[in-house]
């Protein structure tokens, strides 16, 4: 019964992954486990005939099921820790040739790379999530929500908000061209620059400053960024906004009709001399400002019908959380190949 499997060490016992179905070793004491022995050392762990070796001949895995005689393994490491092993076993004694040993080593390294990549991805996903606002702020007279679901482990989309001094709330949705780790690194940069620069100044000026700071990074990486940034005066509902190539922002009125926000300019990273102009509008009682990413636009057919479809999800007077949830569920059913991001701010007037 020759068998190959990957064992990962849990706190107590080896946990077998990718086995061909049969249990390679009888569950028992950790110190009797051959995969555990393999993990305790580095490099090839090889027993060509366990019955001929006094160290193993009385091991319960040799004297009983699975009657192991041959065992070869390479440990798998991640972040400097041995976490498992790629194991080969046989119920007959046999010789492992140099070529076979080297193949086993290559396979173990390949698994190690996969495990490492997984760990990197998990970590990157956690960081990406941490860069998004964690809790919904309590804003008297308003309801606010944001969601960002990257296609890969991480992505170039993000949303952000902060309450500035006094009466103002700033909301941002941005989309760095591309997907995955590269886009996410730039997204983190863009977010930081916008946060640092946007405070206190006129929004169009702030964007100009951000574009200047980011110009080299974006040019060197051949990337552009689309941004929607709005500053809302809470007491009046006055909205000052800039739209750098996003084009996917609208105000949903209480009667279900909507108006797209018309003042738009080029994305960042196209032309260093771009000048943006701020647009002005007002969020009245029971109106909702909705901004979404091109991932949503494309999933909804890639035409301007997407505005109506998004709006329809928000017409019901449910909580914004519910509106966003139904929208995202409807999108998740279809083909999506891009990050899905949405931000919505409703002026409720009540607390």
């Amino acid at each position, binding site marked *: 019964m020759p068998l190959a499997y990957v064992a990962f060490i849990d706190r107590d016992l080896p946990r077998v992954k990718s086995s061909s179905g049969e249990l390679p070793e009888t569950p028992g004491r950790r110190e009797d486990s051959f995969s555990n022995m393999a993990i305790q050392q580095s490099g090839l762990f090889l027993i060509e005939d366990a019955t001929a070796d006094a160290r193993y001949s009385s091991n319960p895995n040799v004297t009983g099921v699975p009657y192991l005689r041959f065992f070869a393994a390479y440990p798998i490491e991640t972040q400097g820790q041995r976490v498992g092993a790629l194991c080969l076993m046989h119920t007959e004694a046999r010789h492992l040739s140099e070529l076979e040993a080297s193949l086993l080593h290559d396979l173990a390294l390949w698994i190690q790379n996969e495990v490492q990549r997984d760990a990197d991805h998990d970590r990157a996903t956690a960081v990406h999530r941490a860069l998004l606002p964690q809790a919904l702020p309590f804003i008297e007279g308003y309801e606010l929500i944001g969601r960002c679901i990257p296609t890969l482990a991480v992505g170039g989309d993000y949303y952000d908000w902060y309450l500035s001094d006094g009466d103002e709330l700033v909301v941002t949705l941005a989309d760095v*061209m591309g997907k995955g780790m590269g886009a996410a690194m730039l997204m983190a940069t863009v977010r930081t620059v916008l946060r640092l620069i946007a405070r206190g100044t006129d929004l169009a000026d702030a964007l100009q400053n951000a574009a200047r700071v980011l110009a080299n990074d974006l040019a060197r990486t*051949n990337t552009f960024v689309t941004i929607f940034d709005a500053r809302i005066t809470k007491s009046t509902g006055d909205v000052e906004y800039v739209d750098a*190539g996003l084009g996917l922002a609208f105000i949903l009125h209480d009667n279900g009709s909507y108006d797209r926000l018309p003042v738009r300019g080029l994305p960042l990273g196209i032309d260093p001399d771009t000048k943006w102009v701020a647009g002005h509008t007002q969020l009245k009682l029971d109106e909702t400002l909705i901004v979404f990413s*091109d991932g949503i636009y494309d999933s909804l057919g890639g*035409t301007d019908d997407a505005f109506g479809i998004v709006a329809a999800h928000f017409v019901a007077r449910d909580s914004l959380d519910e509106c966003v949830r139904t929208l995202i569920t409807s999108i998740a059913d279809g083909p999506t190949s*891009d990050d899905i991001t949405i931000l919505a701010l409703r002026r409720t007037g009540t607390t």
Partner: protein
Amino acid sequence: MTSFATETIGTTLVVRPLGRLDLVSAPQLRDIIASSVANGIVGVVVDLHGVDFMDSSGLGAMINGLKATRQAGGNLRIARPAQQALVVLDLTMMQQILHPYASVEEAIAAP
């Protein structure tokens, strides 16, 4: 798989992507334009007629090509975008710098 046909008309390279112009295929377009510029052909027309889907990465490759050709004293123009590509150009305001021409001939002849 997106394929790219190329043709030199006069002193202009005409690139015809067929399929999707997205994250996967955009680097190919970038490479085609870069090697054209490296070979001294700095006038490029991208014929988008066969592109059924273009995303921001595809747009990025063309912006990149626009910069590369202009730096070398040339230009990049686009022709015959389908509705979907036109919408992307419109949303991003990029038609300001990538004017869509109705035909390859018009794009080549444009000043």
